């Protein structure tokens, strides 16, 4: 009798442990941080970094990449080779992330890599659909001096002198 109780107890304990270690929804990415230095004299410049995403589930998931903060502005835009796509079970995907640096400066932001399970919503009652997000911290820094447009200042000066000369002639008349 006692043995039976112990056995039942052990089975129940094993069940509890199993419940707690169920892998229902997972994912992984690398790298979780990206820091890029750009020479200001090379601006505008495009820097491309590879982001690797792993679908560790045995079902497909939807992947969305969301740039946030200063990396999504008129001075620095961020593009992805692929976005809002379905990843097969167990798949690994490399995404090219391009930072288009248009103006010298220091930019901080993040890319949220979001994993969502497709379909299978609960049928009854109120619910929150769960997703996973891996924020990739991004810092883009420019170093040195930005290159000016060659001859721009000289052309600008000549045009200004001509306009001034014409204006003077007109006022003298």
């Amino acid at each position, binding site marked *: 009798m006692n043995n039976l109780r112990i056995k039942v107890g052990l089975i129940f304990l094993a069940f509890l442990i199993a*419940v*707690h*270690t*169920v*892998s*229902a*929804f*997972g*994912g*992984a*990415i*690398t*790298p*979780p*941080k*990206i*820091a*890029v*230095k750009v020479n200001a004299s090379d601006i505008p410049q495009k820097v491309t*970094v*590879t982001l*690797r995403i*792993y679908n*560790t589930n045995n079902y497909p998931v939807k992947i969305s990449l969301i740039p946030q903060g200063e990396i999504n502005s008129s001075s620095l835009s961020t593009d992805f080779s692929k976005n809002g796509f379905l990843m097969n079970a167990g798949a690994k995907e490399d995404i090219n992330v391009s930072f288009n640096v248009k103006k010298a400066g220091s930019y901080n932001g993040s890319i949220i890599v*979001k994993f969502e*399970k497709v379909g*299978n*919503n*609960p049928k*009854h*009652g*109120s*619910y*929150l*659909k*769960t*997703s*996973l*997000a*891996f*924020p990739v*911290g991004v*810092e883009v*820094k420019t170093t040195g001096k930005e290159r000016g447009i060659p001859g721009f200042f000289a052309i600008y000066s000549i045009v200004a002198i001509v306009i001034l000369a014409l204006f003077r002639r007109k006022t003298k008349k």
Partner: protein
Amino acid sequence: MDKRIFILAGLIAALLCVPALASTQQQTSVTTNVQNVAPHVYNGTFKTQIKTIQGSVVYESIGNYVTPNLLRTNAIIPYAFYGEGISFSVKVSDQNGEGDLDNGDVKIILDPDHPYANDGDEIVLQAGYNPATVGDSDQYNLTFQKDWTVGNQHGLYYVYVMATDEHGLAADNNAVCVGKIFLNPAVGIDVNVTSLTFGNVVPGETNVLANESPIVVNNTDPDHVGMMLAIGISTTDLTNQDGGGQIPASNMWANIISVNNMTTNYNVTMSNSAQVILTYPGIYPGSNNALMFNMYMNVPTPLVSGTYTGSATIYAIGI
């Protein structure tokens, strides 16, 4: 009589030898060859320091000693992410004196292979000597160093040191393995839910526990480097699918009950923006260290009947 002859003969012989000895002192040169000795890499002095782009040191080791109380002190394998700086340094010795090394060649090589294989997949870093170690009281050793920034590499690399002196003689322990480093390890989690359901509730009901509680978040540490994770959570408001009502995110909260195999009890109120559940030291890898929390909701009143839905996002940040 015989004795006198012997003494006389000895005296003559001695007198004859004096000029001979003097001429020997003038003409004989003493020569010896001092061999060029192979340098030696002191692997116990190998230093690795990892810095974030902001310049914060997150990991440091010298030989087998790891500096305590840094963010990555507990890493199983030291790791660094894209754009982070790694400083390497090592002491190289030469019994011919440090002058035999300053024009020598010291390389720090990161190689996925163990033992070292010169097969083209390695990262070769040319080290230079620290000028402060030239002409100091230590006449035999120079410290060589290299600062390097991590790029888009991924994987485990063994660190080797190769040294030759200025005559091209290789170190007696060349290609000595001085450690390993993981470049850009992956961040991974799994949770035991894909949705949080509150079932059928009535307006004004309080402390409604989500059916899936406790929610369990595991740090899977896919590359087994011992990375810790910070965890955050956000929820949207629950909105009536038929329109006409909503349950604000602020009516929900997570009660944290366990992390890193320790019982806890604190609440985090939900919001549309990510709320930090756990920062440093974060969750250690392994299911024993899982973060566990219960999710609760207060149902507002009045509230029109219907099915209310929203979303919850769990954030994982590698430290």
